[in-house]
C-alpha cells in the first residue's frame, strides 16, 4: 500500500476556478502522481481533467489505496464501502476520532476499528497526512521536496513529517518514503518499521513516535533492523507534561520513560530529541565511516572556545584525549609555537586560514589510534577579518580532499559566528553549500556536533557488539 499504482480519493473537491486552497486530490495532480488516479465525488463528472466517479463501486478496478478526506461521521460509511468493494488499503486523513478524548470521537473510533478489523482493512490514520513518495510523485500535502533519496521516515505527527522534510532538505537529505500514520488504526509503527526495514530503496530510518499499542512487537522489529540499517528515533514523553500532551495529540499511552531508555539501549535505536538532531544524525550516519571509538580531535582557533568545545564533547559522552608527545612533535613541524596551542583541541590560527597546511595536520591527527574522528571548527568572524575568502577556501579544501587525509575516520565541520552583518550570513551560506555538496556533514554548533558524533560512536559500538554475539 506504500507503493500504490492506483489511488482513489473519496471526497475530491470539484474544480473551483480561482480557489487558492488545493485539496489532497489537487496536490496529487499538481505533484504529478505517476499511477492511475480516480477522484470520487457524485456531484462532478470531471475533476482536474480526471473522470470522476460517484462511489468506490463505480471504479473500473480495485485500487491500491483509497484516501478519505471527508468529515469523521461519514468515514464509517466509506469504510464499509471499502470492505464491500474489496479495496483493502485505506488512508484516513480526517480527524475527530479517539484522539479527541470525547465521547462522540471515541464512539466513532470504536466503530471504524471494528469495521477495519472485521473487514481486514489496512488503515493508515485517522488524523494523518498519509504517504509521501517522491519516486511515485505521491504526496497529499503542499511544499514537499522533489528529490528522490533513501531516507525513510515514519511519524505519528504530520507536523514532524513536514519539519523533517524541510530541515532535512536544507542539509542535503532526500527521502524514499515518508508516512504520517497518525492514530495508526490497523497499521502502526511496527508494521511500518518492518516495511522500511525490508525496503531496498531505504538505507536509514527516522521515527517520530508518541506511543505504541504493542511495544514488544516494535522492539523486535527495531532490534531486527538496527544491525544493518540505523533507526533514529524521537520518543517524547520524558516529562509528565509531554506525556499528557501526547495523550491528547495521538491518543497514545507514552509509557514509562525508564523502560523506553532500556528499549533504546537494547534495540540499538538511536534516540534524539528534535527535528534538527534527527536530520543531522541521519546525515552523519549516511555520509560518515563508522568510528572505532569515542575519541575526538577538535581543530580550530581560540582558547576559550576550545575549552568550551572540550566541555561540550565530554558532556555528550565523547573523549577528548590529550595528544601524545609524538603527535605534538608531528604537528609542531607545521604549526609554529607562537600564538598556537598544540594540544587537543588544537588551537592553530595559521592552519585554519591556509588550507595548504591542512594535509600534514590532518594526517597526524587521523593516524593517532586514540583519535577516532576530527572536527574542524570554523570561527567565521575571525576568519572573515583575516580575509573573507579564507572561509570558502577551507570549506573547498575539506569538501574536495579532506577525506583523503583521514585514514578512513569521520571528518565533520561546525562553526560559530556572533556578528549580525549580511556579509557573515553570506559566507556562512556559501560554506554550507560547499560542504554539503562535498559530502562533509556540517552541524550548526559545537553542542549538536558533539551530540551527533557521540551517537554515531555509540551506534558503531552497538553494531560491533551485535555482530560479535
Amino acid at each position, binding site marked *: 500500500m506504500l507503493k500504490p499504482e492506483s489511488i482513489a480519493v473519496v471526497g475530491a473537491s470539484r474544480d473551483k476556478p480561482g480557489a487558492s486552497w488545493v485539496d489532497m486530490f489537487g496536490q496529487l495532480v499538481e505533484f504529478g502522481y505517476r499511477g492511475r488516479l480516480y477522484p470520487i465525488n457524485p456531484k462532478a463528472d470531471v475533476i482536474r481533467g480526471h473522470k470522476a466517479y460517484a462511489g468506490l463501486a463505480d471504479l473500473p478496478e480495485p485500487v491500491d489505496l483509497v484516501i478519505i478526506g471527508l468529515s469523521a461521521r461519514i468515514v464509517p460509511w466509506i469504510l464499509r464501502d471499502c470492505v464491500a468493494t474489496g479495496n483493502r488499503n485505506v488512508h484516513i486523513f480526517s480527524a475527530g476520532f479517539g484522539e479527541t478524548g470525547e465521547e462522540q470521537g471515541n464512539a466513532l473510533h470504536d466503530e471504524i476499528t471494528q469495521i477495519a478489523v472485521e473487514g481486514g482493512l489496512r488503515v493508515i490514520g485517522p488524523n494523518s497526512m498519509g504517504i509521501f513518495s517522491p519516486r511515485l510523485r505521491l504526496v497529499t500535502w503542499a511544499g514537499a521536496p522533489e528529490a528522490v533519496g533513501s531516507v525513510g521516515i515514519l511519524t505519528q505527527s504530520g507536523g514532524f513529517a513536514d519539519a523533517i522534510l524541510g530541515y532535512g532538505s536544507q542539509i542535503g537529505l532526500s527521502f524514499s518514503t515518508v508516512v504520517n500514520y497518525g492514530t495508526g488504526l490497523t497499521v502502526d509503527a511496527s508494521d511500518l518499521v518492518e516495511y522500511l526495514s525490508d525496503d531496498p530503496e531505504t538505507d536509514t530510518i527516522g521515527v517520530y513516535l508518541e*506511543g*505504541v499499542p*504493542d*511495544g514488544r512487537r516494535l*522492539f523486535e522489529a527495531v532490534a531486527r533492523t538496527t544491525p544493518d540499517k540505523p533507526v533514529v528515533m524521537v520518543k517524547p514523553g520524558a516529562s509528565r507534561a509531554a506525556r499528557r500532551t501526547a495523550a491528547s495529540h495521538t491518543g497514545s499511552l507514552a509509557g514509562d520513560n*525508564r*523502560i523506553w531508555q*532500556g528499549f533504546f*539501549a*537494547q534495540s540499538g535505536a538511536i534516540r534524539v530529541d528534535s527535528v534538527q538532531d534527527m536530520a543531522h544524525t541521519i546525515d552523519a550516519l549516511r555520509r560518515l565511516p563508522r568510528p572505532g571509538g569515542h575519541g575526538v580531535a577538535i581543530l580550530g582557533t581560540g582558547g576559550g572556545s576550545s575549552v568550551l568545545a572540550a566541555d561540550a564533547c565530554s558532556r555528550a559522552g565523547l573523549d577528548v584525549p590529550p595528544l601524545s608527545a609524538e603527535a605534538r612533535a608531528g604537528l609542531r613541524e607545521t604549526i609554529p609555537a607562537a600564538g598556537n596551542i598544540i594540544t587537543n583541541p588544537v588551537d592553530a590560527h595559521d592552519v585554519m586560514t591556509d588550507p595548504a597546511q591542512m594535509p600534514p595536520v590532518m594526517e597526524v591527527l587521523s593516524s593517532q589510534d586514540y583519535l577516532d574522528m576530527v572536527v574542524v571548527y570554523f570561527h567565521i568572524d575571525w576568519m572573515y577579518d583575516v580575509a573573507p575568502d579564507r572561509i570558502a577556501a577551507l570549506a573547498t579544501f575539506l569538501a574536495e580532499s579532506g577525506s583523503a587525509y583521514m585514514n578512513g575516520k569521520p571528518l565533520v565541520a561546525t562553526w560559530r559566528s556572533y556578528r549580525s552583518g549580511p556579509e557573515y550570513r553570506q559566507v556562512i551560506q556559501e560554506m554550507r553549500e560547499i560542504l554539503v555538496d562535498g559530502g562533509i556533514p556540517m552541524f550548526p554548533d559545537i553542542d549538536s556536533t558533539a551530540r551527533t558524533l557521540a551517537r554515531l560512536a555509540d551506534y558503531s559500538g552497538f553494531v560491533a557488539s551485535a555482530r560479535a554475539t
Partner: protein
Amino acid sequence: METGADLASRGGEMRSLSEFESRNILESYGIPVVATTLVTTQQEAVEAAADTGYPVVLKGCGAGLTHKSELGVVKLNLTTGAEVASAFTGIEAAAAGELDGILVQPQIRGTRELVAGMVRDPQFGPCVMFGLGGVYTEVLDDVSFRIAPLQERDALAMMDGIRGSAILGPVRGTAPADRSALTGILVALGRIGLEKDHIEAIDVNPLLLQENGTPVAVDAAIWTTR
C-alpha cells in the same frame, strides 16, 4: 518509583505471595537467596537458629506482611537462644494473626544494598529492573530497565547504566561485585517473567552485596494474578 507493591495496590485481583513462597520460586530459578527455615513454634525457632549459626534474623512470614520492618515483625542480629525465643513471641504479637510461620535466616553481612526485580509493562511485557536498593530505591530512584529476555551484555549494560554504578566497584575495602552472578540473577528474573504468565511483579530488595562481592537476596516479594 513504581514498585511491585504499587502495582499490587492498584490491581484489584493481585495477590502477594509470602516471603517464603517468593524465595522458593527465586531459588528454583537459580537466584541466590538467603538460607531460610520456616518454623511455627518457639522450640523449632531456637533449634533452627542453632543449626543456622548465630547471629540470626527472625521474620514474620505471611501473604499480608509486605512491609515487615514497619510492622515490627523483623528482629535482627539475634545472638542467643533466649533472644530468639523472645523475638519469636514479639513477632507473634506484632503480626496479629497474619502469620503463616516465622523465618529463621543467618544474619548476612554487607553494606551495599541493591534492588532487582521484574515488572509486567502494559506495552512491553516482562521487563527486568536493577538499581540501588534499600532506602535508596525510594530516595534516589536510580534504577535501569531492560525488556526480557536479557542477553548477558544487556545485564552488564544495566549495571553500568545506573548513576551509582561505582558501588559495584571495590568500595572501602570491599571486593568488587561479582558481575557474572548479578548477570545470572537479572537473566533469571527475565526468564521468570517470560515463563510464568501469572507472576505480575517481583521485588528483590535488598539484594545484598556481601564483603566478598557475592550478591544474595535477603528479602523477596512476588505478586501474582492468581
